[in-house]
């Protein structure tokens, strides 16, 4: 690497240095009146000096702020495009996405779909974009961080006159006493400046740590981005779902059959039941349906402690019991159960009775109850009657005249019963569903009738494990620390430089010049020193 000698002090500086590291003499040939560029105190930056190998070129690409800003701007525009129409996850599941976008949004929708904007944020190119930003942050932090560290670690209080004269704040004082100078230094200390001296030259400095703010926040961002990538590692992340009925005990999915959950009760409240809700009366009156106020599942979690033999009966031991409320998940062993959805009043059982077809009093001959989650196939009675459940449709509907079940949940049960009167082999057939009681042959001697039913609520629970959360949390925390550190503090420096018969003062801050000016106003109180000139303003005039 080409280095060069400072013509003022003879120090051997690295290539690309613009301000001598030792004495501070600016190496550009600009006039003395021009303000000095104080970025990294003129220390050489890798990306500005090396551009030979392919690695240099890649390095320089990523450490360019122009490139970084462009990448962020592209991500910004892309993200905005993704909000023009709803993303795929927010459209109804019943139609194909292609048809949905075409029908709802016409040609524009079709184009949107064709370009893959309907799942933009999971697309490979969006992820590549974010990864490139991450890469850029990483490389730029090294590219600038190392020189900044070097510049701030080694600071010579004795600076070349050209360095001082070209600071934004500069003053030269002829009239001052020793007391003035003492007072000035004591004021600086009072405002918590750290002062170092060399041959009567002073450097007063405060808030240096704030210079690390951007690096700390970039570091937090990188940790955060790595955290989001880890989600793709299988054991780090579980996303599952289970419906549990009241009174039911079910295995919790994604736990390798070790954990079970029992839904003891599902509680559901709406607005308007309470005296207190009167204050919302106006809004409630405008709504067609009640507004949910609160819902929760009272649950018990069990662990299977039986020997691990497939097919053996589970042996359940209670682990925890509690309520799963929206915003208050129940946690077991890094797994969190969230109250997600519900199904109110699902049928649990239905009771029927048999009577003679012509009997207006409908006097019962036999009675029985069908458990809708686990129905018996046959019901026999002491008086010789036998009833077979030939077909059971939990969620009955007619599809082109054919009965079928829409789902496996007993939301609208339908039954085909075979009734065998005593000593007969030929059954009478009956079809029952809510609102239907059909005798296909019109010749039945006996008729079935619904006498009652039980309902219960079903709770929908999300099962989540996300081991990336702590990493994301740490990343976000570090990011905030860095942001606050860099934004709410500033790095201020004041140099005092005695010449033959004068005292020079120069000031620099990395931001908030207004604050520095105010502070200097206080620091020169009770002295004969006057406010330094803002040389930038002077140039404007």
């Amino acid at each position: 690497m080409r280095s060069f000698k400072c013509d003022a002090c003879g120090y051997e500086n690295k290539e690309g240095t613009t301000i001598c590291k030792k004495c501070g003499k600016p190496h550009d040939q600009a006039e003395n009146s021009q303000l000095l560029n104080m970025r990294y105190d003129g220390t050489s930056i890798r990306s500005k000096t090396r551009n030979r190998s392919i690695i240099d070129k890649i390095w320089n690409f990523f450490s360019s702020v122009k490139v970084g800003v462009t990448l962020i701007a592209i991500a910004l525009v892309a993200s905005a495009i993704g909000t023009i129409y709803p993303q795929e996850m927010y459209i109804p599941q019943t139609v194909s996405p292609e048809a949905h976008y075409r029908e709802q949004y016409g040609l524009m929708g079709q184009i949107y779909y064709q370009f893959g904007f309907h799942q933009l944020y999971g697309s490979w190119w969006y992820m590549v974009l974010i990864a490139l930003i991450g890469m850029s942050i990483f490389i730029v932090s090294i590219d600038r961080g190392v020189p900044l560290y070097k510049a701030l670690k080694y600071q010579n209080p004795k600076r070349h006159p050209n360095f001082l004269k070209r600071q934004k704040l500069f003053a030269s004082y002829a009239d001052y006493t020793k007391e003035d100078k003492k007072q000035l230094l004591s004021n600086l200390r009072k405002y918590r400046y750290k002062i170092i001296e060399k041959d009567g030259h002073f450097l007063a400095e405060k808030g240096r740590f704030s210079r690390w703010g951007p690096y700390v926040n970039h570091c937090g961002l990188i940790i955060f981005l790595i955290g989001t990538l880890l989600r793709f590692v299988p054991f780090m992340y579980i996303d599952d779902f289970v419906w549990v009925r009241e009174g039911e005990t079910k295995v919790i999915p994604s736990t390798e059959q070790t954990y079970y959950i029992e839904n003891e009760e599902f509680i559901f409240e709406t607005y308007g039941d309470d005296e207190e809700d009167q204050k919302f009366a106006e809004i409630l009156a405008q709504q067609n349906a009640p507004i949910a106020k609160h819902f929760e599942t009272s649950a018990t979690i069990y662990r299977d402690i039986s020997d691990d033999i497939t097919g053996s009966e589970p042996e359940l031991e209670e682990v925890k019991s509690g309520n799963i409320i929206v915003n208050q998940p129940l946690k077991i062993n890094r797994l969190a159960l969230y109250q997600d959805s519900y199904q109110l009043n699902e049928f649990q059982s239905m009771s029927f009775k048999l009577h003679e077809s012509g009997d207006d009093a409908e006097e019962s001959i036999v009675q029985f109850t069908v458990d809708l989650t686990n129905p018996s196939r046959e019901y026999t009675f002491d008086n010789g009657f036998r009833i077979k459940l030939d077909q059971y449709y939990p969620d009955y509907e007619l599809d082109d005249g054919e009965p079928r079940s829409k789902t496996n949940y007993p939301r609208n049960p339908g039954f085909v019963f075979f009734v065998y009167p005593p000593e007969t082999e030929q059954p009478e057939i009956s079809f029952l569903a809510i609102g239907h009681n059909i005798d296909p042959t019109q010749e039945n001697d006996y008729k079935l009738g619904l006498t009652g039913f039980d309902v219960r609520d079903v709770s929908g629970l999300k099962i989540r494990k996300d081991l990336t959360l702590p990493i994301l949390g740490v990343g976000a925390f570090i990011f905030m620390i860095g942001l606050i550190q860099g934004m709410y503090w500033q790095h201020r420096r004041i140099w005092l430089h005695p010449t033959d018969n004068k005292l020079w003062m120069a000031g620099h801050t990395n931001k908030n010049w207004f604050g520095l000016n105010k502070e200097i106003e206080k620091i020169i109180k009770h002295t004969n020193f006057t406010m330094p000139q803002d040389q930038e303003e002077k140039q404007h005039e």
Partner: protein
Amino acid sequence: MTSLTDWSSSFLYASFIIYLIATVLFAATIKDKKREKQFTKLHVLALSTTIIGFISQLGYFVTRWIASGHIPVSNMFEFVTFFGMMLVLAFIILYAIYRIELLGLFALPIALLVIAYASMYPSELSPLVPSLKSHWLYIHVTTVALGEAILAVSFVAGIIYLIRQVDQSKSSAKTRWLEFIMYSLFATLAFIVVTTLFSALDYSVTFEHQPNDEVINLEYHLPPIFGPAGGEQVTENRMGALFDTPTWMHGAEAPRKWNTLVWSLLVGLIFYWIVRLILRKRVAASIQPFVNKANPELLDEVCYRSVAIGFPVFSLGGLIFASIWAQEAWNRYWGWDPKEVWALITFFFYAIFLHLRLSRGWHGEKSAWLAVVGFAIIMFNLIVVNLVLAGLHSYA
């Protein structure tokens, strides 16, 4: 309870009037040309009036909180009002640091516009659905609003900077954009005036239309320039719609929203031209003499500092607290809901602002234009995303 809600609206009304007075007082401090750079009694009066207005609005906030039993940031009216209040707070903070009266002369009218805009939305107390019942609602929404308000002060400083610095002697792209910003303010005012006027007249006309499979009755409170496409007028004795709403406006309520937008833009245009005819100059050019005394470097500094102060607050509230809450309520910290995406866009945008400024030397005018764009993004997220790109966060 009713009395509490009454109190609450009286407080809000009072604060509106007090802010108006404070604006006039700040205007007076600028007229007061003799005593430059001094903190006179008039300044103290203007500032304390603002603070009294703020306290009165705080009174609105607290009484409404007690009345409804939850923090009043749960619908469009409440949130936008709160944003207006935070804008005043952000102004007070930055005024305390920089003592620029001009900031008050511009920030307070914008806060007034925001609060008046909020009151166009239904203001009944509304119940909270279970997913909103969380301490994070309080923490998240308040920090977001404060962060956005501080960022908005950079817009205020930026716009003053531009009015002062842009050369008004000839027409250019810059003067046209400045006029466009002025016009946007007029259009907001027009929205408020038109809505208030027709609601005072109790105007209403109903259409029946079929946006999807269902037939829906849609009630208009402004005369229908644009009616629903293929809609049938139900109310009699009212003027019918002049045009059909374009079909690319989707949703059951879209025709009404479109109609309101067109009304605001048209009447805004009329307001704007009346003012221009009276002034016989560009609006920004007429304001220019009033801001001449301002120090552009200081304005630039305020423009940057408010981003420097607001950016961390916004990041914390809009992204971090938001994610924590989303994780609790919906078991995913990020769901790419439009509102979330636009918070991310805001974040990206101000990150760009900071980098361009720090590393590429975008100071002064460029920086001021960026501050204007940033404010436009915030307003877009506040208004358009809520009303048009409906998602989980939609208040409407």
